[in-house]
């Protein structure tokens, strides 16, 4: 039913997203070669043996792309999940508890958001090692500020509704109110935000890795692969454009799907027009 009226852009986006996710999950079974083995010459052009050619050290670019998809998607998903868990629980708590807790949390989030995320990420990574758990933690915490703002705003509205009042009057605790009353009703705006935050995480991670402060070699996500192959550009070897293009394709696809979902949910609400 909902797929019938799906615009062509969203359909393509959904298809590409699913394909990339499958590649990420099943990387070891799909990749023709191990990701880190040196096989041929440096920057060989694409051939029947190496479909996308070889990279700056003579590794198979296609295999590295496939493993890179895994690292990119894994870190982005993990940090998005962290951002949502942290941001929404704290946001709901701020709305339900109110008072000093709300003020303190909201001012702190304002403070964190007044520094550009990339800059603060770089500042923190100047003293912390760039391991995968730390990357997930840093990205997740920085991104949770935006989820916090959204969930607090949504929860403040829900918090004054009759069924929440009723739950409070019959003596339910804060945990019940948050998980049984507010969460189910706040889900749809949060879900439509999910795609955007995921894209943001992919782009943030790629930027960090591109700057040499994200995933460390010999592992590489797509941003790291752009970094590895960037010297080739000046010699007219476009190997770096392949991972860069893959990041763009993933981000655009998820964006198309998220945009479609967003339009669908706003359509349901009515209003003067679907501008």
């Amino acid at each position, binding site marked *: 039913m909902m797929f019938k009226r799906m615009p062509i852009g969203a359909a393509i986006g959904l298809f590409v997203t699913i394909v990339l996710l499958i590649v990420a999950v099943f990387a070891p079974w799909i990749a023709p070669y191990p990701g880190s083995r040196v096989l041929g010459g440096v920057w060989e052009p694409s051939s029947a043996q190496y479909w996308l050619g070889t990279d700056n050290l003579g590794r198979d670019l296609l295999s590295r792309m496939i493993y890179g998809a895994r690292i990119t998607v894994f870190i982005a998903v993990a940090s998005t999940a962290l951002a949502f868990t942290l941001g929404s629980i704290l946001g709901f708590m701020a709305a339900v508890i109110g008072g000093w807790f709300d003020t303190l949390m909201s001012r702190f989030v304002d403070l964190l958001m007044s*520094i550009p*995320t*990339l*800059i603060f990420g770089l*500042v923190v990574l100047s003293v912390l090692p760039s391991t995968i758990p730390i990357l997930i933690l840093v990205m997740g915490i920085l991104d949770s500020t935006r989820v916090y703002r959204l969930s607090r705003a949504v929860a403040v509205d829900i918090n004054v509704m009759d069924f929440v009042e009723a739950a409070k009057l019959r003596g339910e605790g804060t945990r019940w109110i948050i998980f049984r009353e507010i969460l189910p009703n706040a889900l749809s705006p949060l879900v439509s935000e999910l795609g955007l935050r995921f894209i943001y995480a992919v782009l943030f991670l790629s*930027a960090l890795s591109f700057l040499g402060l994200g995933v460390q070699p010999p592992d590489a996500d797509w941003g790291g692969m752009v970094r590895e192959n960037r010297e080739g550009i000046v010699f007219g070897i476009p190997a770096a454009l392949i991972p860069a293009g893959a990041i763009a394709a993933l981000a655009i696809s998820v964006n198309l799907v998220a945009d479609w979902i967003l339009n669908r949910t706003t359509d349901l609400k009515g209003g003067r027009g679907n501008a």
Partner: protein
Amino acid sequence: MGAHPVLTLIAQRIALGILLLLAVSVLIFLGTEILPGDVAQSILGQAATPQALENLRRELGLNDPAYIRYFTWLGGVLTGDLGTALSNRMDIATSIWPRLKNTLFLAFWAAIVSVPLAILLGLVAVRYRNGFVDKTISGLALSATSLPEFFIGYVLMYFFAVRLGWFPSVSTVYDTMPFADRMRAIALPATALTLVVLAHMMRMTRAAILNVMQSAYIETAELKGLSLFEIIRKHAFPNAIAPIVNVVMLNLAFLVVGVVVIEVIFVYPGMGQYLVDHVSKRDVPVVQAVGLIFAAVYIGLNLIADIVAILANPRLRHRR
């Protein structure tokens, strides 16, 4: 006898901005000093002797409590002394100054191109709303917002610098460079930056104008029989100017961040590259100083956006 309400509001905003900047300086300081990494250890490496570590700690003042080090640092920053870099023992303020000028030069030209273009495209999209032009512009904008900066940067470099050879692929600039050469050197990074912010700015401008165009007073003006030009001049523009300036300032703030990646791509000697280099070297004083400057510019642009919104609000123009 109170001051004019607008002045009071602006003064409050500025005070708030200064307070925010102070809080940010605390946060940046905490972020680099309290976290588990030991600066002395990371400079000297794992093999350092305890004696060498102790000497370096004393030299850097790491044995003082954190709040004393913070106030020493803040006092230095306020008097223009940003400290010395750990990696090359150079005065940070003197290394930053020419780089800051380079970055501002690049950002200035990117802004000069992108701001009018984005507003124009936004207006065109609203004028032909839901038509082919609007859908094309909006579709392109949606895709462009999800392109990573380095994709745009390297595509431009690959085609215009390497394949066609129109521009240099590495944007070297130096002090005595003639203006024309300098412009040629920044052409590609400035284009890349423009593309990075253009889509965002255009989408937000379109939304801001649409928001105004859909209000009841515009409908009234339409029904009164005013021409489209009159409606825009008398009713839409005065109300849209605040949100548009807001959009522009927010995107200039974006631009300040986008500069980091773009400078690394084109090896442009600006603040962003300086920051990234010293993050990899774990040179904390430089990272603190540059981080604070970036945050100050960001907060400053947001402050200007707020002040313009206050000035543009006709309800605040007269005393109650």
